[in-house]
């Protein structure tokens, strides 16, 4: 699952950070950044409702491949700037975090055929 797949699956828009060819290794759905930092997975897709610079900075610390903000929350300009600076794709989705989790689960299940 790459950035294009994420955008399509979640009816989202890539708003900052640019495209990349990285694929999802681990999915983390969380709004508490310390919980995100606890995760040891690689190539994290971060699903969050936190529309702040810190979501992007946290994503960078754990080497996340993409951040998705839900419920079509307005994204602060600084958040987009930080995403551009750190080169982390930032996607805005109108879905709820729960709906995103379900769709991504289904996609990955289909992808791996299991």
């Amino acid at each position, binding site marked *: 699952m790459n950035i294009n797949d994420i955008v399509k699956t979640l009816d989202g828009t890539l708003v900052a950070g640019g495209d990349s060819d990285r694929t999802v290794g681990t999915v983390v759905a969380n709004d508490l950044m*310390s919980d995100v930092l606890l995760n040891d997975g690689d190539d994290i897709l971060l699903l969050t409702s936190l529309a702040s610079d810190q979501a992007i900075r946290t994503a960078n610390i754990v080497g996340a491949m993409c951040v998705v903000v839900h419920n079509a929350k307005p994204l602060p300009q600084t958040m987009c700037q930080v995403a551009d600076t750190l080169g982390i794709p930032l996607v805005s989705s109108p879905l709820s975090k729960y709906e995103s989790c379900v769709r991504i689960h289904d996609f990955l299940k289909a992808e791996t055929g299991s």
Partner: protein
Amino acid sequence: MEYKPTILSGGESRNDDQIMAAHERKHVRRVSGPGLPGSDGQGEPLVIMELLQRLRVKDVMRDHDIISVVRTDTMHFAQNLMKRNHISGVPVVEGKRLFGIVSINDIIMALEGGWIGDPCQKHMATNLVVLEEDMPLAFALKYFENYIFGRFPVLNKERDLVGIVSQRDVTRVLMRELTNELARLEGGAPTLGAAGEQPKSEGALPYYSMRQFVVVRNDLQNAGKAANEIKKMLGEAGVEKKIIRRVAVAAYELEINICIHSLGGSITFILDGHKATVVAKDKGPGIKDVEWALRDGTSTANDWIRSMGFGAGMGLSNSKRVADFFDIKSTVPTGTTVLCEFNLPEKK
């Protein structure tokens, strides 16, 4: 509050209350944060600011072999003394009491005016700007900035002359103390050589660097910048990705902690061939129960902090989890210092 120098007039002793009051006024100003001369102290590295407050004038002054004259010595004698010792002024002292100073300017005027044979007491300066031995070094630097004098006499509480301090003395001691401070932060590792040579050893990563970041209270907009910068430095140094992540997680958690729980502080990062070290130091209010704070899920964070995605009570325990060595010291209300060390494997 107006900054008032200590001035002795005509060798008379001052009222002790006045001296203490002046000193206290300066201390009030000190707390508001004077830094290096010509600055408001906000932009200086904390290590230097702390050093300038911790060191006292008596730590840098020259307190032995003070070259001096007595009141009855001639200006010509003072001139020769200054010439022989390559100094631009000489105090007029009897016993421990300071009566005045003869400067190179006084000598020039004596030569021009034809009174070079007169006793010093007739032409010495008696309106003296002096330092007190217990003043923070920051004030000595302010004196050097505010006055044209190259050296100042130093008095003790009894108003006895106990030393002389010149700009050269200040530089010498500051360099020594900064080197010691660097060695301490580095945890005993070898410091940079005089020529800036990088310490290297067999199999070690060939780099050394140190950076300090100021963390401002409640400035969540900028919190995390230090950790991201540290991550970048580690990446550029070619450190293994998994280790970079652990160091970055600790730095980030500690940086956020300083931002949301303390009055502000700093993150210091040191990287050498064998070890990466993160030191988080804040200015208070300190942690009453460190053991409690180290438990997962315990937090004093308020709703605002939680709404920003923090305050889950994982910061300290998370830092401890990822570090090879973790230490925390906290005093109420002085502040908290957290040390995280990470071993760097030798490059194959």
